[in-house]
């Protein structure tokens, strides 16, 4: 009996120790943190960076030439056609927007919940948000067919047409949601950067850098008065970004849910889309972070604990997504609506069954390995799973869009969607744009929120 109690106590102690593990390992000083993060932007540009930029720049060029080709020839160069009028474009739009959501989750929601582990990764994840939203925005803008008229989506009183928007349309809501999201994310990111830009200004050794970072940091001087208003602004931005990020994917899901199409017209869509967005976003953060912390040797600031926490979020949200898939099927059966039932049986057994089962295995089955601590802390495993998850989440959007559209109410208008080479190269090109923007970010801006990490360090020391 006594021995058992002893063992239990020992177990408790170990669990407690693990909980109190320092977030930043190796006990660095404030100066160490400044130096390690600043050096990444201060050293001579590495040859490998130029090579990487050359490759991704080329892929970005491919993206722009595909978009130019589309503008010249019209939307017909994509595979969208009746009955599948939304193809890869909207799939990719939802895919990229979803990836962005992890950035806001990490910077805003985890901030409000006082999750200190976010400080090492939030800058990185916020940058990812911005670049993902930039990639997402391309698709609806070009899908309108005449992108030079895309500004008609906004209520701008330059009446070259005398018409106004229809605010009953979820697509119009989406214009407001996504543009607000992009703007607020940019503001939030910039506010977070100001004190760290001041660090680079203060460390600058050349006049050019001093002026460039000096202008960007706006004359920040770290006074308590500055910090007071800054922290207030940061808290408010976190507070309003939290409902914002939930609203954005809710409204994206309204694009589907408000339509009366079987397979789209379901009330489960908003929470299901939000969970999926966070899931794919965290997967993307893990993919990028594993590479970045290794390349830039910041393993002691972005520690295994950070990665492990992200894996836990992935298994949680992946399971929520799996639960949503099951609920959809249950409701289709329970509703007694034969169109609804057909859509779902067709999803799992019809011509797109291969896509459906890819989605299930990537999204629901693969993250389950993260129940095991060994897997959660094994970098090759999490790297591979994070990529699999993103493939799965892309398929989720494709399945929702294509399977619901390709079987119209009349069998005479049934069809099958096939992407064109332009579709494929455009999607490939957005990865080029995403990584190009990321490389520029890593080269010129501090990839870790230095002042926030120091705050965490100070709290650890107490």
């Amino acid at each position, binding site marked *: 009996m006594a021995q058992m109690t002893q063992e239990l106590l020992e177990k408790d102690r170990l669990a407690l120790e693990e909980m109190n593990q320092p977030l930043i390992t190796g006990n660095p000083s404030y100066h160490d943190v400044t130096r390690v993060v600043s050096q990444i932007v201060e050293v001579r540009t590495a040859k490998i960076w130029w090579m990487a930029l050359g490759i991704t720049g080329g892929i970005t060029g491919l993206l722009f030439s595909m978009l130019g080709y589309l503008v010249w020839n019209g939307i017909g160069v994509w595979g969208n056609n009746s009955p599948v009028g939304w193809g890869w474009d909207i799939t990719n739009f939802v895919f990229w927007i979803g990836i962005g959501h992890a950035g806001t989750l990490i910077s805003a929601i985890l901030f409000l919940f006082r999750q200190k582990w976010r400080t090492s990764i939030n800058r990185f994840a916020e940058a990812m948000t911005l670049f993902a939203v930039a990639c997402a925005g391309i698709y609806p803008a070009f899908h309108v067919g005449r992108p030079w008229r895309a500004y008609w989506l906004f209520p701008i009183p330059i009446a070259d047409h005398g018409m106004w*928007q229809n605010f009953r349309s979820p697509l*119009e809501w989406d214009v407001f949601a996504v543009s*607000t999201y992009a*703007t607020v994310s940019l503001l939030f990111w910039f*506010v977070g950067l100001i004190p760290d830009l001041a660090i680079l200004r*203060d460390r600058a050794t050349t006049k050019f850098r001093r002026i460039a970072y*000096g202008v960007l940091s*706006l004359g920040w001087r770290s006074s308590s008065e500055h910090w007071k208003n800054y922290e207030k602004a940061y808290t408010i931005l976190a507070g309003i970004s939290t*409902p*914002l990020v939930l609203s954005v994917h809710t409204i994206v899901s309204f694009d589907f849910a408000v339509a009366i199409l079987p397979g789209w017209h379901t009330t489960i869509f908003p929470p299901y889309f939000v969970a999926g967005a966070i899931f794919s976003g965290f997967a993307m953060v893990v993919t990028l972070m594993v590479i970045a912390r290794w390349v830039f040797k910041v393993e002691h600031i972005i520690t295994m604990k950070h990665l492990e926490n992200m894996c836990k979020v992935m298994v949680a949200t992946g399971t929520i997504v799996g639960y949503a898939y099951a609920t959809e099927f249950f409701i289709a059966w329970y509703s007694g609506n034969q169109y609804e039932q057909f859509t779902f049986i067709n999803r799992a057994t019809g011509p797109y069954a291969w896509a459906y089962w890819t989605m299930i295995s990537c999204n629901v089955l693969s993250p389950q390995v993260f129940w095991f601590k060994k897997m959660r802390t094994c970098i090759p495993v999490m790297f591979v799973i994070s990529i699999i998850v993103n493939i799965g989440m892309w398929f989720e959007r494709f399945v929702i869009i294509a399977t619901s559209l390709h079987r119209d109410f009349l069998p005479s208008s049934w069809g099958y969607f096939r992407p064109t080479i332009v579709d494929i190269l455009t999607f490939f090109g957005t990865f080029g744009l995403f990584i190009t923007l990321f490389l520029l970010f890593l080269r010129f801006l501090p990839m870790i929120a230095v002042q926030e990490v120091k705050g965490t360090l100070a709290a650890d020391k107490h």
Partner: protein
Amino acid sequence: MIQAFINKLLTPPKGSFGVAAEFNSVDSLMAAVLRSRAEGYTKLETYTPFPIHGMDEALGSKPSVLGYIVIAIGLCGTATAIALTWWVGTVAYPLVIGGKPLWAVEFTLPIIFELTILFSAFAAVFGMFHLNRLPQFYHAMFNYSQFTKISDDSFVLVIESADPKFNAERATKFLSSIGGSAVEEVAK
């Protein structure tokens, strides 16, 4: 007259901004602030690499008013969205679709919500810039020899010349006596 104005612009401001001293940790800075307050100084300011919990209370500074600015401007966003959707829907371009009303709160709620958020975010960021007087590319503190160390790992306390008790010599002596290093009078 123009010449006089230019001369005024070109002559550097005279006088002293205050006396600055460097401390090496959060705790020693906090202790120094409390000592200075006990000594009767009221115009104090600290400069730190990261925000320090409890510093505002120690300095006796009032809470930020940014929240009020954001609420006011955020509500302007709400009003703008209601006015815009109502005017567009019923006056400028009335469309009857599916027999639905020209304006209703249900379908305009997403727009109202997003514009409230957008206006609030702008208010939070530009309100903070306003309260902190940013951008500001010259400030007396940039003259302090240790200024560039602050953003790295230095904790600085300044007794400002605006303090009614201010006397450069006495302040210098006092800051040195409580453990400050690099004690300097900072020019305006």
